[in-house]
């Protein structure tokens, strides 16, 4: 007999799933329990080099209240139905809105989109999971609050809750998003509602201003995890600075990356440059201005000769360093002198101010992100090779120049083995450095899809063998990355899971935790 569902949760009979769906409909109403193929298809596109069938949900639930979620977890416990939470579902290149495992029910929180509070004086916000950056941006503008957001590249269509819970980053001085998180409300698997930090204390008004509360700090265990469902989220906003000065510094040789990072690190740690500095390779910037097929047509990764032609044609450095200064004009003037002296010492840097780079579309979108404004320009990456395949490779290292060339060489070598290009950038956080590579491939080409999978697997293997841990990964490789952090951490994760969610109903597989 043909199933009426496009997938079923692992180990759940159709009869039991029917009963669960019936109960979900009683809680949410028919219109907000999605089970048809047409309704679920928008949840399935993943960009990963595995069959979408492996990540096909059995249903999607559109909840609007905490009470509904409490009832949903009760049903899930009763029938052992696993759920996969998304806030806005924009985890593009990391699995998008699709669940980690076939048959999981997507709990889509996009309709929980209330901005509960934005405090102008204390510069914080409290929002529900479905709130988008665009929504909050518009609210702040409308109410003339003089506050800035920090957001990732998918800006307008993404949201602060999902991004922060997956430990995403932005490009303003508040770009390390979880660092600026303050207070969560979490529905636990048993239906209880936990407010973290000061939120647990009746009558306290410090939930969004003091992170730690009393006793063990719990917020961290609800990021990149499956220990609860975050339904409210507090975070700090940056007061709009009186002045802002974005700039780009171009370098012409790949080996210059050593000098770049050595120059940046003291400026970051001392706070002269307050935001994370992006050091983008020419191939990361090229899609904003050019198409791959304009330069190469054969198989294999793009040759260096073509990269140099792209640089020349589109006025790009091989490395393009994007950063900004924030503060009063006086502060900026002083810091600008320090920055230009530091970068100018070797004579290799070409420093361009906003006035000098104003017409450059790559600079324009970077400048927007650094001032917390909406732009989706970085999506141009998906046109570079085309075909819809993308995976973010994101190892972390110390912020030292000596960590760069060997990482880049290894990455390029592995990508070239599989015929793929190096679309990479280094981001100097403060003492850490993220090496971000978009592994782009053509998903319509079965051979290239297979190669992309093997390539990504090899990148993880080789980097972890050298001590470079991945800070975030797509759902197809979560188990592999979890394994690289060793058995003790995995055991602790599992112990927590068992204690908080004994039936394993909340997002099994997230970060390799079941």
């Amino acid at each position, binding site marked *: 007999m*043909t199933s009426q569902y*496009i997938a079923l949760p692992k180990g759940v009979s159709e009869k039991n799933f029917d009963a669960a769906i019936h109960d979900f409909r009683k809680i949410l109403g028919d219109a907000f329990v999605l089970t*048809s*193929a*047409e*309704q*679920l*298809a*928008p*949840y*399935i*596109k993943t*960009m990963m080099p595995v069959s*979408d*069938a492996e990540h*096909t949900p059995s249903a999607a639930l*559109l909840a609007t209240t905490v009470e509904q979620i409490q009832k949903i977890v009760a049903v899930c416990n009763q029938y052992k139905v696993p759920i996969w939470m998304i806030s*806005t*579902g*924009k985890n*593009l290149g990391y699995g998008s*809105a699709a669940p980690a495992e076939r048959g999981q029910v997507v709990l889509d929180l*996009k309709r929980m989109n209330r901005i509960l509070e934005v405090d102008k004086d204390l510069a914080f916000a409290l929002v529900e999971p479905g709130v988008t950056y*665009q929504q909050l941006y518009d609210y702040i503008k409308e109410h003339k609050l003089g506050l800035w957001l920090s957001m990732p590249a998918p800006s*307008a*269509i993404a949201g602060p809750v999902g991004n922060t819970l997956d430990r995403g980053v932005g490009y303003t001085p508040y770009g390390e998003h979880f660092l600026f998180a303050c207070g969560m409300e979490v529905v636990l698997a048993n239906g209880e509602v936990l407010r973290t930090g000061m939120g647990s204390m009746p009558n306290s008004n410090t939930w969004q201003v003091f992170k730690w509360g009393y006793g063990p700090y719990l917020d961290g265990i609800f990021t990149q995890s499956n220990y609860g469902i975050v339904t409210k989220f507090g975070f700090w906003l940056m007061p709009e600075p009186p002045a802002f000065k974005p700039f780009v510094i171009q370098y012409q040789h790949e080996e210059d990356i050593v000098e770049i990072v050595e120059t940046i690190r003291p400026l970051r740690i001392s706070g002269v440059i307050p935001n994370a500095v992006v050091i983008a390779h020419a191939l990361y910037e090229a899609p904003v201005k050019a*198409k791959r*097929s304009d330069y190469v*047509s*054969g*198989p294999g990764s793009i040759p260096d000769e073509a990269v140099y032609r792209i640089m020349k044609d589109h006025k790009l450095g091989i490395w393009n360093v994007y950063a900004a200064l924030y503060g009063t004009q006086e502060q900026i003037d002083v810091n600008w002198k320090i920055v230009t002296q530091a970068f100018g010492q070797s004579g290799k840097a070409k420093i361009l101010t906003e006035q000098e780079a104003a017409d450059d579309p790559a600079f324009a979108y970077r400048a927007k992100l650094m001032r917390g404004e909406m*732009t*989706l*320009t970085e*999506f*141009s*990456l*998906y*046109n570079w090779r*085309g*075909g*819809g395949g993308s995976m973010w490779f994101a190892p972390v290292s110390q912020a030292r120049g000596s960590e760069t060339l060997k990482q880049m060489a290894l990455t390029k070598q592995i990508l070239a083995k599989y015929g793929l290009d190096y679309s990479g950038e280094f981001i100097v956080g403060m003492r850490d450095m993220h090496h971000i590579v978009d592994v782009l491939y*053509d*998903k*319509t*080409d*079965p051979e290239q*899809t297979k190669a992309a999978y093997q390539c990504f697997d090899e990148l993880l293997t080789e980097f972890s063998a050298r001590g470079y841990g991945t800070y975030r990964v797509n759902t197809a490789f979560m188990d592999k990355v979890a394994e690289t952090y060793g058995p003790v951490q995995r055991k602790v994760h599992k112990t927590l899971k068992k204690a908080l969610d004994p039936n394993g109903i909340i997002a099994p597989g997230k970060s390799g935790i079941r």
Partner: protein
Amino acid sequence: MDETRRNLIKGMLTGGTLLVLGIPGIVQAASSSAVFSGITRDCHLLLGSTPIGEAFATGARAACAYYGHGAQDSLVTSQLGETLLVDPQYTANLLAQSKNMRWIAVMDYAHAAIFTELVRNANGRLLALGSHVSASNTDAVLSLRHRWTTASPAYSAGGLLASMLVQNERSFSIRENFLMASSHETRLMNALLPQFSSYGLANQSATHLHCAGITLPEASQLAGWETSTSWDSLATRPAASFIEHLPLGNWIETTGYAVVAAALGMGIHQEACAQRAFVHRPGNRNLDHDGLAGQQFVSFVIDV
């Protein structure tokens, strides 16, 4: 057999007969299948940022003129251009204000990544999502690749597209994955294309492979299965089949035609299966791209 189903099959068979007589019978089939698919929605074409938009629209309008009836014989077209990257809210509002509409949208991969998200936000129903690539390198084994994720075989465009491309001595692969293998399509097994040899995955009849001009193992590999995959021959062959002879200029126009014909619910060359592929390599290895080598785009058929 339900009445609309009976009408559809009757229409198709009659259409095939009329074709043999040199009379395009598709119009009759069209009206029947449109009833079957319950297409009462207004169809609109949405052209996003891609240089192939106009070519796709040419094919789309041809399909509408050919299969459409009443108000549907012309296709209202909206230009999105770059607005998705600059102002996604504009498109979000466009979808939110749609009522009982079927959108056929075409755009590049950057815009498609955003559009998919907006469709989900709008609680849209995604009937078919196609990825269409023309190889930019001349030594590619196949010049064209089409990949679809489709809600069910009822929205499948792959068979019609294959029937048209094969006439042009085009090398191509088409792979379709159906999220729900509709049981009511089981009687469409005789809609297989005569130009192709047809196979079913051994021990899993819901996977079909149709190949021509190429060995079965190679076709299997090019469609994304292992060369060692075991296939059984599907003996059923059509007594008659639709053959489209339309003056479409290139593969993009042809794709636009097939996508819109499927969106209108024409139900041509459909099969009851979970996934299927067509792989064709002509004898002369014609790699003519109509001057469109390297072109690629994404197509959507959605109901809002």
